[in-house]
């Protein structure tokens, strides 16, 4: 049996339901979003002339869900236009719509009876191949499906998304006892490839993996804090980025999620996991209950563990709860020697920092030892109770809780043996399977072998190979396997098989520097000779955050104009080399793709962006203009679709160029690949990879597909408006300056942008070569580099990370 989800339905239009529906549209799937009919007409409804027959009233909940998700921040939709792919309705009038959907995802209130009643109705309508899932986070799958027919049970499973579904990578899939294997397999690959999720398979146990381990993690930290009489801000300073946690640490995260949510999960878990050896941890400590009574639930009630107030001068002050007195006191900047020592190891990675902290000797290290030991023991004891292997636990915590390392990876980093020794010192009960593992000579949970990565399996009592997903091309793994063709400090050309090479950047933030530019040339030379084509992409969070502005500043301050001129022309030439290479180059942008990064991403034969691509030419923020071909290429991209002869027949191209100007002068950045298409940085005909892990594979397939019949493009001639464009921009800048929207220097920089886009001193309707625009870019770039205010902007960005408006 093969399955194909083309149309879906989401039942329940609360925040989760609506945001899941929104993400389905991002994947190109049409869906309907249904919810209940309101209970009764209110007085206000009657005043508005609504009756019990009005669709506006009957669909109120689904409509509210859709309206909310359209406004949500961060955005749930790749583009607001996607909202039209969601059809709203209600459970009474519109269940008929379910007859032709391929997947139904139920996200109604967490009430077994309500869920069962709804499914009883749904069962009668759906087609026999429809896959049905529940997004429950706490109700056993087997209870929901207790009354299902045998056929429905085969097609039923849990699909537990994390909030917000677009951004949180984790998707827990919970097969029921009777769920057919091919349906589980299909949903795994569908979720990975189409929805871009990281899937872990869970057993049908309370709160599955993420929230079970995650809630233990939080309550463990809270209990140790109380026992050790430490403060909330101290704990957050320790269990922080230094051990691979998000910046919100423990209590900031709880404030973000809402204490009520966390509190209920604790209580539910306590009731549900009667055999859990550590279940008492889930009993909320007293002060949490007091906070619940006070409705100090976190950000949504404006106070929780933290609260922001203003001092006499109107400056925002961060206050923290003193849980002994239940009063808010100014939050400090807690300092611990062990923590400072650990942070020095930042360059070596999170594992090194965590190990350093674990081996320290002060209160912070005491806390970390206690906390890690408890966490590790708890995680080890949960396998195979909640899942079959340790990888699922690690992935769940990384993808669902933004931990940089899962508990077993962290344990490896600190040293399995060393931790066990500390556990014994602290009189913890070391799990038998860990003792056995060490006895068998296995001293880490993961080992790298020649043919790939292995993990320790408690059941097999040995290492088992982690199966490679062929659609996930792991560059570091390939590099380990001696697939490196050429490498320098900034970039590496890797053979990714089938005659395709990948150019990987690895500078800090993947910033563009000399080495990287040099590697583009080298890579192109090699690829042209020996390969079918090249992918330009990487695994880092960001494709490239732009040029290395520190190096530019140094050159500016040293008056090294020849260096700057060479920098700009080399980068332009490198980009042009990629664009006109005789074999196809496919760029694969993802994450931040800014400035020079955007310019590189625009200079492939084709582009295979990740859905989460934040792309823009942001150079004006540091007082320069895109000098690597960005101005030229956006001018070309926005005008390339103009029919031949249209300009000669009188087409006014001012709107095309106004848009190009606004992109650059306002430093517009897309919030998704689709928006990058709207801005013109990616052609609308390109395909989008939903899964970041599979993006390089997708790009490689594109190279292979193109390489068979590839002809490099002919050099383009670009229609420009000449002086007329500058006159137009001059008038607009006057108003913006007079209206105090922009500074004198903003005007100066914007004029440079206008000059480049105008094509120089020529009449409207002139066609210029790419090189002419590149020359204008370079000239403008150099002249701005010589300006004090540009240097001030760069300095400010380097020291504060924020643009200076001077």
């Amino acid at each position, binding site marked *: 049996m093969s399955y194909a989800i083309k149309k879906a339905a989401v039942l329940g239009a609360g925040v989760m339901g609506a945001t899941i529906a929104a993400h389905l549209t991002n994947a190109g799937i049409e869906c309907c979003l249904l919810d209940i009919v309101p209970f009764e007409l209110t007085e206000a409804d009657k005043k508005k002339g609504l009756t019990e027959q009005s669709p506006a009233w009957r669909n109120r909940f689904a409509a509210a869900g859709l309206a909310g998700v359209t406004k949500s921040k961060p955005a749930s939709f790749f583009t607001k236009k996607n909202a039209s792919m969601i059809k709203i309705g209600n459970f009474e009038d519109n269940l008929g719509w379910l007859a032709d959907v391929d997947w139904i995802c139920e996200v109604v209130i967490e009430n077994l009876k309500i869920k069962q009643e709804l499914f009883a109705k749904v069962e009668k309508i759906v087609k026999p191949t429809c896959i049905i899932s529940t997004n429950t986070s706490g109700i056993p799958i087997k209870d929901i499906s207790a009354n299902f027919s045998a056929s429905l049970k085969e097609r039923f499973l849990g699909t537990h998304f994390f909030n917000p579904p677009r951004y949180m990578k984790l998707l827990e899939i919970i097969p029921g006892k009777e769920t057919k294997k091919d349906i589980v397999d299909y949903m795994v690959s569908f979720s990975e490839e189409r929805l871009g999720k990281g899937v872990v398979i869970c057993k049908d146990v309370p709160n599955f993996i993420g929230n079970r381990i995650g809630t233990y993690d939080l309550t463990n930290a809270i209990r140790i804090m109380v026992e050790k009489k430490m403060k909330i801000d101290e704990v957050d300073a320790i269990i922080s980025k230094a051990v691979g946690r998000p910046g919100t640490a423990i209590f900031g995260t709880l404030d973000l999620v809402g204490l009520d949510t966390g509190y209920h999960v604790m209580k539910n878990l306590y009731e549900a996991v009667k055999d859990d050896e550590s279940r008492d941890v889930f009993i909320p400590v007293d002060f949490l209950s007091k906070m619940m009574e006070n409705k100090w639930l976190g950000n949504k009630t404006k106070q929780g563990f933290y609260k922001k107030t203003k001092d006499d001068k109107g400056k925002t002050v961060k206050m923290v709860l003193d849980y002994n007195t239940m009063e808010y006191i100014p939050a400090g900047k807690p300092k611990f020697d062990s923590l400072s020592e650990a942070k020095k190891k930042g360059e070596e990675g999170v594992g090194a920092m965590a190990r350093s902290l674990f081996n320290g000797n002060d209160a912070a290290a005491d806390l970390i030892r206690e906390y890690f030991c408890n966490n590790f023991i708890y995680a080890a004891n949960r396998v195979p109770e909640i899942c079959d292997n340790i990888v699922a636990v690690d992935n769940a915590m990384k993808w669902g809780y933004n931990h940089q390392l899962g508990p077993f990876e962290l344990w490896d980093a600190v040293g399995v043996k060393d931790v066990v020794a500390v556990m014994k010192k602290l009189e913890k009960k070391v799990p038998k399977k860990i003792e056995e593992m060490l006895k068998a000579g296995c001293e880490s949970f993961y080992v790298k072998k020649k043919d790939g990565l292995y993990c320790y399996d408690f059941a097999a009592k040995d290492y088992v190979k982690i199966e490679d997903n062929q659609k996930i091309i792991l560059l570091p793994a390939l590099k380990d396997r001696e697939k490196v063709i050429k490498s320098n400090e900034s970039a590496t050309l890797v053979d990714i098989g089938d005659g395709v090479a990948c150019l990987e950047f690895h500078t800090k933030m993947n910033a563009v520097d000399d080495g990287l530019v040099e590697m583009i040339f080298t890579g192109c030379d090699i690829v042209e000779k020996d390969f079918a084509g090249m992918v330009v992409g990487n695994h880092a969070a960001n494709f490239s955050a732009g040029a290395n502005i520190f190096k530019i500043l140094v050159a500016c301050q040293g008056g090294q104009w020849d260096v700057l001129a060479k920098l700009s022309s080399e980068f332009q030439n490198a980009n042009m080399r990629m664009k006109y290479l005789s074999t196809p180059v496919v760029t694969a942008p993802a994450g931040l793709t800014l400035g020079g990064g955007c310019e590189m991403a625009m200079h492939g034969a084709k582009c295979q962006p990740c859905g989460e691509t934040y792309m823009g030419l942001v150079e004006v923020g540091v007082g320069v203009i895109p000098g690597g071909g960005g101005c030229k290429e956006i001018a070309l991209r926005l005008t390339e679709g103009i029919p031949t002869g249209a300009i000669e027949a009188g087409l006014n191209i001012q709107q095309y160029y106004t848009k190009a100007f606004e992109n650059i002068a306002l430093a517009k950045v897309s919030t998704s690949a689709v928006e990058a298409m709207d801005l013109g940085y990616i052609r609308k005909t390109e395909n989008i990879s939903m899964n970041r892990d599979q993006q390089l594979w997708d790009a490689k397939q594109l190279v292979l597909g193109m390489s068979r019949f590839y002809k490099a493009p002919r050099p383009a001639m670009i229609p420009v408006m000449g002086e007329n464009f*500058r*006159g*137009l921009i*001059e008038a607009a800048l*006057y*108003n913006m300056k*007079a209206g105090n929207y922009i500074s004198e220097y903003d005007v100066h920089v914007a004029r440079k942008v206008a000059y480049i886009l105008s094509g120089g001193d020529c009449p409207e309707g002139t066609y210029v070569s790419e090189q002419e625009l590149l020359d204008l870019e370079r000239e403008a770039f150099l002249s701005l580099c010589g300006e004090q205010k540009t240097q001030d902007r760069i300095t400010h960005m380097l020291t504060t990370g924020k643009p200076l408006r001077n």
Partner: protein
Amino acid sequence: MREAVIVEAVRSAGGRSKRGGLAATRSDEIGIQVIKGLLARVPQLDPADVDDLICGCAFPEGEQGMQMGKILAVGAGLPESASGMTINRFCSSGVQSIADATAKINMGWSDVIIAGGCESMSHIPMGGSIMRPNVDWPSDAPWVYISMGMTAENIAANYKISREDMDAMGMESNRRAYEAIKAGKFKGEIIPINAFKYKTTKSGKRIRETFVFDTDDGVRWPVSLADMAKLKSPFAAGGSCTAANSSQTTDGAGFALVMTAEKAKAIGVKPLAKLTNYAVAGCKPEEMGVGPKYAIPKVLKQAGLTTKDIDLFEINEAFAAQALYCIREIGIEDRLKSGDINPNGGAIALGHPLGASGAKLTAQLLHEMKRRKAKRGIVSMCIGGGMGAAAIFEML
């Protein structure tokens, strides 16, 4: 001596641009229907006697391009002997055309002229579709390309017109317009338009429908000062000119029938009024809104009159900032309060269809004077680029 008289002055209702009742109707179509309505009110006139049609238009391009004057003449069913022309003095075009008609007739160059203006701001953007400022224009020279909103902000800032006063004027304008419409005051001057709207039928077919549009649709009432105070200026950071105290962009047309007094007598119609004086005055482009401050005294001096001799004013509310400033400078703020200025609301409520506004205000002024049995009135407005215009009308 020959004397030009106005036999009738009418207008279409104002439709909010893009969203209002005339948004889907072409500018020339609106003009033709208003002219047909005007001629229908004077059945004694043989259309063959109309020898010219002057159409004011601020952005004569697209559907209001080509030679709109002649197009309207032909469209309204005038015989081929009728001529037509289009004139442009931006916001005063509609009254400029009536003044020009008066002058031509007084000179003996014409006997019967239809004069007014026509503008679709829904279809033709302000600044025109192909704006091409001169790249060599020195940035410190008088800035002729300045946005209108910015000129209003300049006036508010330079002459300290408070946000509160501007909002109060905006509110009062809406209140007066609402009351006037409720009392049916505009019925006599408005020619109902068979306007278009585009729809999609249930079967998915796109169709054009015709409906009657006869009421100004830009009036916002009730409004509260508190809500108005929340609006931000779209023109300047921290500015004080907002959607609530600025005129609306509007579609509409207005036309008057001007002829010699002898002709009126010969065909047996009673003239309504005559345009006795007209003046334009220049000012700084960056403060174009101050125009009426200069134009009104100039026209009064020309006529040998003072403001006390004027019973009624229609002063275009391009922006409350500039209208209020001019009214204060001329020393007639008490007349604003007492209802001798813009008694039935101004452009903040009723809209400002650029090239049509002068004719629209003339129709409003003459019909209100008729109701009041007043003698003299002034129509005045500021003009983009840095000018003001003012015309004195005397009832007959």
